[in-house]
């Protein structure tokens, strides 16, 4: 085991997979010689060469499409889109092609492509470097969607995704790259070395898709969340001294409905939290499923915590971000329904 931040954990996952499987290639803007704008691929081109860690033109549509082409010719590309906010030129290739190649060819072709992309706000990135577009992709059948909340999961999940024979969009909450973040920007930053999930196995290991993680066991209420909001939820529940069961779903597609629903049936109360905008957000899918499966166990209406339904504004980052205050308000509402 070693101390790793999320960047180091992701780097380690790619390093191991490049070493283990000659069909794995990395590709993306600035990822080769430079090592990526967030340093996730640092040193890998030097170690594995320019034919395995490939700098690309600035063309996300081209990156996704050529990754698909490589994948149907036996490679296993891991493509980086520099920011999730820049993924849209690749949208047609993801939605119309990557997601459906297995289906439309009756399984004769498949595309084991992993698309890594940093998402989320809290870094003063304004509306073009802060988005959380995961639900846009969960709505597309044929794409797996993953978002880790800590270095250990990031590494294990990324290895699983690279080995997966289906395409995956792997969202990396960039605010968590260097440390857990509880939603309070005024507190000094905390490094991952202070967090148990900053201890990461240096070798090969996998974290399964479709298996949620119970971050904290509890009896009073279930908080279902993922990404940055995992840490905000933990802090908010602790501050209110609520015995919350906090579930990090980790993979949105496939979704671990069993873990979610057994918890809600046990606690009878449920809060769903994500950073992305509320309207048609992934919270709506979770909420619907919980309502269908757990209706008779519910003691209170399910509460949703999310970003507001606006673009991510540069000047109002913390008024926009669903911080502890918003989680606490939801917890209070679900614990003491009016």
């Amino acid at each position, binding site marked *: 085991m070693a101390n790793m931040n999320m960047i180091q954990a992701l780097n380690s996952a790619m390093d191991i997979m490049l070493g283990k499987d000659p069909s794995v290639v990395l590709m993306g*803007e*600035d990822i080769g*010689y*430079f*090592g990526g*704008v967030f340093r996730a691929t640092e040193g890998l081109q030097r170690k594995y060469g*320019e*034919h395995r860690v*490939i*700098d*690309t*033109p*600035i*063309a*996300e*549509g*081209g990156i996704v499409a050529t990754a698909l082409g490589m994948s149907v010719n036996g490679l296993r590309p891991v493509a980086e889109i520099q920011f999730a*906010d*820049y993924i*849209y*030129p690749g949208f047609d290739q993801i939605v119309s092609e990557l997601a459906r190649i297995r289906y439309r060819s009756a399984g004769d072709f498949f595309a084991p492509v992993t698309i890594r992309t940093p998402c989320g706000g809290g870094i*003063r*990135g*304004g*509306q*073009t*470097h802060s988005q959380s577009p995961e639900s846009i992709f969960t709505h597309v059948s044929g794409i797996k969607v993953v978002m880790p909340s800590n270095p250990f999961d990031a590494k294990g999940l990324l290895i699983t995704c690279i080995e997966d024979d289906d395409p995956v969009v792997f969202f990396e909450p960039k605010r968590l790259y260097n440390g857990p973040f509880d939603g309070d920007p005024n507190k000094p930053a905390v490094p991952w070395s202070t967090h148990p999930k900053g201890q990461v196995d240096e070798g090969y290991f996998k974290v399964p898709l479709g298996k949620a993680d119970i971050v904290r066991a509890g009896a009073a209420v279930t908080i279902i969340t993922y990404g940055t909001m995992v840490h905000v939820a933990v802090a908010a529940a602790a501050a209110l001294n609520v015995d919350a069961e906090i579930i990090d779903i980790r993979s949105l597609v496939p979704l671990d409905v069993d873990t979610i629903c057994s918890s809600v049936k046990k606690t009878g109360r449920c809060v769903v939290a994500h950073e992305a905008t*509320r*309207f048609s957000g992934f919270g709506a899918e979770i909420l619907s499923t919980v309502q269908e499966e757990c209706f008779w166990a519910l003691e209170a209406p399910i509460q949703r915590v999310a970003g*507001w*339904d*606006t*673009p991510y*504004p*540069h*000047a*109002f980052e913390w*008024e*926009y971000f669903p911080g502890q*205050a*918003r989680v606490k*308000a939801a917890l209070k509402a679900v614990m003491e329904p009016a």
Partner: protein
Amino acid sequence: MSKKSRLHLPRVPARPGEKPDFSYVQLSPAGAVPRPEVNARARDMMSLSVELVRVLDDSGDAVGPWHPHLDASDLQVGLRHMLLTRTYDERMQRMQRGGKISFYIRSLGEEAVSVAQGMALRPSDMLFPGYRNQGLQVVRGIPLVDLMCQTLSNTKDMCKGRQLPVMYHSRANNLFSISGNLATQFPQAVGWAMAAAIKGEDNLAATWMGEGSSAEADFHHALLFASVYQAPVILNVVNNQWAISTFQGYAGGEQRSFAARGPGYGMAGIRVDGNDFLAVYAVTQWAAERARTGGGPTLIELVTYRGAAHSTSDDPARYRAKDDAEHWPLGDPILRLKAHLIKIGEWSEARHQAMAAELEALVAASWKEAVSFGTMTEGPRLDADLMFEDVFKEMPQNLQRQQALMRKERNS
């Protein structure tokens, strides 16, 4: 030599620790490239897209058929705009380093592109800038205070706090809103120009992107639509050699000039010395006249060098030779225009010093005024309610509810 196919990787001339090498940049002597009539057929001027239009020679003289014969007073204005742009950039870079603004992008070494092109166009022409075209804002007379307030996201910010620093706009001055997403403005400018043609107006649109952005599909959409409809548009690719760490070869510059994409789509393509104020002005004026007289679009490649980091989030020492800029064969646009003005007896070292001091003072005074409207850390602050406005023309119910919740949350 292996006869097998092999993945070719564009050669980067000088990485850190290596000797700068610009032998790949194809140069033409100043004055050597002919100037076709503005209504010449694109197919008859293919060579313009591979040669390099230059007017200023190494001794500071203006030579050849592209010499625009501008009045000395215009050249002095151009010099002033370029120096003001650079002075502004330097101040904003320092303010970012001091934590006053979150982000900044300098245009060091590329000032002639925006300033000369901006001056060669009419105020009624619509500009769709990229994020390194602050010289266009200067030419169009946007007060520095307004630009600074945008970078501060303060109470006088034209974007009401919604955009990253440098993403300016001015509807009144025909400067389109800058996008943080690359290349999107290129086909939009073509659409604007198509509308001008549909409406029978003789205004044109001009737009800018870096050579790295020309990899995006939007670049190709722009060229195709511009060519099909012969839209009155000037498409400018600013080839500053670097897109963050990605060398221009990775955008396809190794095999063919960017200007040559123009003839590929059946339109005029011109490659110009982007650090030569006179050449940039002349080529832009030519393209503008061509567009206004029904000759259609022109693709201009402005060959220059990104003297600074990509942005304040970038460190080029990690990927290019440290003294690269000093070896750039096309020099510095400000020094070159200054030398020319001195050579023709219309400028002096003393006047230059005086202007530099005046511009420093202007920038300092503007900053002082700008921060009085608030900074990221000190008030006054924009009202957070503004976050919910302009998502739609009228605020829908869900946003009205969220606005109320946000107020409650802030008071809790």
